[in-house]
């Protein structure tokens, strides 16, 4: 290492490979200090080109931080004077760059440094100005005039994302904000419907959208549908009303859009870049860019592209399924609801557009002769359901309308023997459901207006007491958009709350179940993890039943997966129960 060798070995005289091996064990500070020992070591470490991952730089009034998140490294410095602060940052960053030449992935600049905005000329992937208002609760926040903000936006070269956080509104119509891939703006009190029509970004999140009404969003969606919004890049756009403000009214937002309710889809962000997580551009997502959409209202754009509108608390988020044309092609070959279909099923067209079905719909005989096989999934418009007179056998029959929901009447249930079929799902209906007569294994009752909390409670009491005999039942779920009163449902059941983790495996799991929404999201052949359940035992056979309460879903899992002998509740040998120590609930 040293240009002159010595007799006794030192780090300076060891062979280069060995010194390199030793530097593998040094943290960032040690590497820096080693580099500072001599010119030879400085050059040596520079030549190593150590990959540290990108920088996060955060400068606020009075201090700055230089982080290397991949190395769990953070360097901080404090300086009262703004000029010296910026000088020091530039010098320190230059030093870091000399040894660890990486890009700035994330640069946050405090708007309180507005008088020095002309001194920032960095290059970064994401530029974030300000932070959540909560972080400024103790500090006076400066107002940031548009011309100063534009100066900063013009000077800093941000390549992928821009977050205008505030705390005070950061008002600008700088041309760069319309074209950046990811855009987040908080305090968008100043944004107009015309502004959002100009956006050419891929991912947009607008928070505190006081100025945008349901009507504005509705009109935007209608324009999106008809192709008037000139943004082919758009993947996700979100509108958040802001803390303490009322939620957007769903009916008004979706008015006239002919949407279909769809559950449990996975939206894949195209060209996912992990650096998008450095700000709240897309809300929550998994590491690979998959966004779970538990419930959305879908429609098709006039060009055939599916659009999903999701309402999550105070946020309306719109997903445009145009990420990958290749995936789209592949999707066509798959059946609806295929387990591997990450982009979700195509939105269905309202049947009202068709006066009659295509003529070959009823005659599958020829194709079945050429390509023998069972029909796994048969989807029938109720308008023509009466014309199917036992001409086909299938595993799943789905009868749906997309505007008004399934309208079951006294004839159809009899005709299709729905009360005995293995898997049953009834959605959006106002017919009375005879809960005590259900002999199905999987039951999903979804927005049935006639089902009430006392009725579910009565049903559960009857199951517990053996007044209802449903030996096949594995899972029943009741969904209601407006939510359930869980206390009423559990009243008098004497449940035991169990917060320990347990896996519920479905008896006779069949992959075909996933072709429609029979199962709760996450339940597959490996089962589903239950963490917080209210358990009771069927008195006649000792089988445990676990009630899972979510805001708008009540699920009852029946642990009849194996031969179960009657035994006391919480028996330690009971493999299905991990709740021997569960505490008694208040219900």
């Amino acid at each position, binding site marked *: 290492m*040293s*240009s*002159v060798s*010595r007799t*006794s*070995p*030192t*780090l*300076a*005289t*060891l*062979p280069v490979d*060995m010194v390199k*091996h*030793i*530097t*593998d*064990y*040094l*943290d960032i*500070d*040690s590497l820096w*200090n*080693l580099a*500072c*020992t*001599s*010119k*030879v*070591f400085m050059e040596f470490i520079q030549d190593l080109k150590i990959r540290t991952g990108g920088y996060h730089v955060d400068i606020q009034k009075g201090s700055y931080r230089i982080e290397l998140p991949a190395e769990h490294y953070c360097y901080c410095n404090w300086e009262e004077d703004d000029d010296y602060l910026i000088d020091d940052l530039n010098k320190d960053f230059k030093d870091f760059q000399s040894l660890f030449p990486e890009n700035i992935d994330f640069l946050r600049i405090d708007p309180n440094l507005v008088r020095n905005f002309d001194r920032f000329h960095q290059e970064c992937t994401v530029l974030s100005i300000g932070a959540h208002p909560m972080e400024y609760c103790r500090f006076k926040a400066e107002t940031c005039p548009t011309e100063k903000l534009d100066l900063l936006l013009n000077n800093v070269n941000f390549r992928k994302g821009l977050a205008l956080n505030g705390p005070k509104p950061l008002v600008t119509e700088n041309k760069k904000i319309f074209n950046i891939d990811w855009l987040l703006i908080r305090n968008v009190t100043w944004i107009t419907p015309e502004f959002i029509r100009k956006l050419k970004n891929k991912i947009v999140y607008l928070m505190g959208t006081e100025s945008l009404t349901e009507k504005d969003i509705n009109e935007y969606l209608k324009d999106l549908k008809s192709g008037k919004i000139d943004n082919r890049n758009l993947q996700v756009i979100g509108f958040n009303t802001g803390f303490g403000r009322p939620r957007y009214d769903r009916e008004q937002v979706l008015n006239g859009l002919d949407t279909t309710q769809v559950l449990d889809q996975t939206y894949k962000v195209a060209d996912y870049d992990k650096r998008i997580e450095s700000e709240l551009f897309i809300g929550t997502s998994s590491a690979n860019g998959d966004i779970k959409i538990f419930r959305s209202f879908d429609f098709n754009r006039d060009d055939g592209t599916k659009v999903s509108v999701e309402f999550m608390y105070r946020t309306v988020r719109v997903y445009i399924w145009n990420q990958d044309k290749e995936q789209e092609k592949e999707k066509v070959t798959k059946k609806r609801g295929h387990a591997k279909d990450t982009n979700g099923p195509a939105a269905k067209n309202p049947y009202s557009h068709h006066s009659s079905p295509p003529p070959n719909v009823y005659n599958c005989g020829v194709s079945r002769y050429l390509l023998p096989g069972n029909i796994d999934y048969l989807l029938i418009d109720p308008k023509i359901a009466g014309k199917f007179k036992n001409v086909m056998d299938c595993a799943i029959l789905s009868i749906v309308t997309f505007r008004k929901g399934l309208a079951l009447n006294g004839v159809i249930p009899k005709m299709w023997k729905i009360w005995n079929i293995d898997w049953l799902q009834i959605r959006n209906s106002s017919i009375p459901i005879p809960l005590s007569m259900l002999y199905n294994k999987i039951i999903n009752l979804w927005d049935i207006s006639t089902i009430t909390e006392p009725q579910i409670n009565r049903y559960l009491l009857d199951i517990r007491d053996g007044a209802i005999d449903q030996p096949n039942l594995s899972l029943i779920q009741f969904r209601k958009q407006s939510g359930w009163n869980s206390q009423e449902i559990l009243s008098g059941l004497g449940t035991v709350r169990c917060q320990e983790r347990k896996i519920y495996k479905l008896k006779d799991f069949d992959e075909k179940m996933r072709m429609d929404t029979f199962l709760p999201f996450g339940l597959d052949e490996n089962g589903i993890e239950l963490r917080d359940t209210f358990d009771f035992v069927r008195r006649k056979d000792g089988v445990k039943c676990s009630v899972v309460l979510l805001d708008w879903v009540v699920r009852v899992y029946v642990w009849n997966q194996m031969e179960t002998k009657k035994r006391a509740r919480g028996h330690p040998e009971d493999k299905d129960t991990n709740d021997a120590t569960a505490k008694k609930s208040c219900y």
Partner: protein
Amino acid sequence: MSVEPEVPIVQVEEVRENPVLYKIISSDNHVFTISEHAVKLSKTLWDLITNLGLTAENALDNPIPVENVNGKNMETIVQFCERHKYDEEEPEYTNYIREFVLPEWDRQLLSIDNEELFQLILATNYLDIQKLMDYCCRVIGDMAKDKTPEELRIIYGIPTDAEDDALERSASDSPGPSG
């Protein structure tokens, strides 16, 4: 007072194997005995044994001279190899190299002064013992924790730029072998 039964004490290692032993002679003529499993940790020694055709019958009659390693270092190396001879192969841990924790026994073994440690790492490099090399590098790396550049210069024996220049000048001024 109880009387201990007279039973032969058998070392666990002897039970596990009937070891083939090899003799190694260090540069200062110290002789060490090492088992076959232990010597296999050194790629250099094992290649030598294979090439020389040493077998269980003739191994002890043919000591292997290692002229680059002194007795002190060889003792440490033999101890290390005997300790780790039955270790399972460790997965590559390059991603977590800085989080890897040195076992206490090995930390004690390698608690030696810096000059010896640098000599040991050279010997380890010569004998090509990967695991000991990793451990030595870990120990040398740990020396740098929370040290200033000035302290590092002393610990690692790094000359300042001025010293280095002066040494280089004097080396170039002195007459070469032919001069």
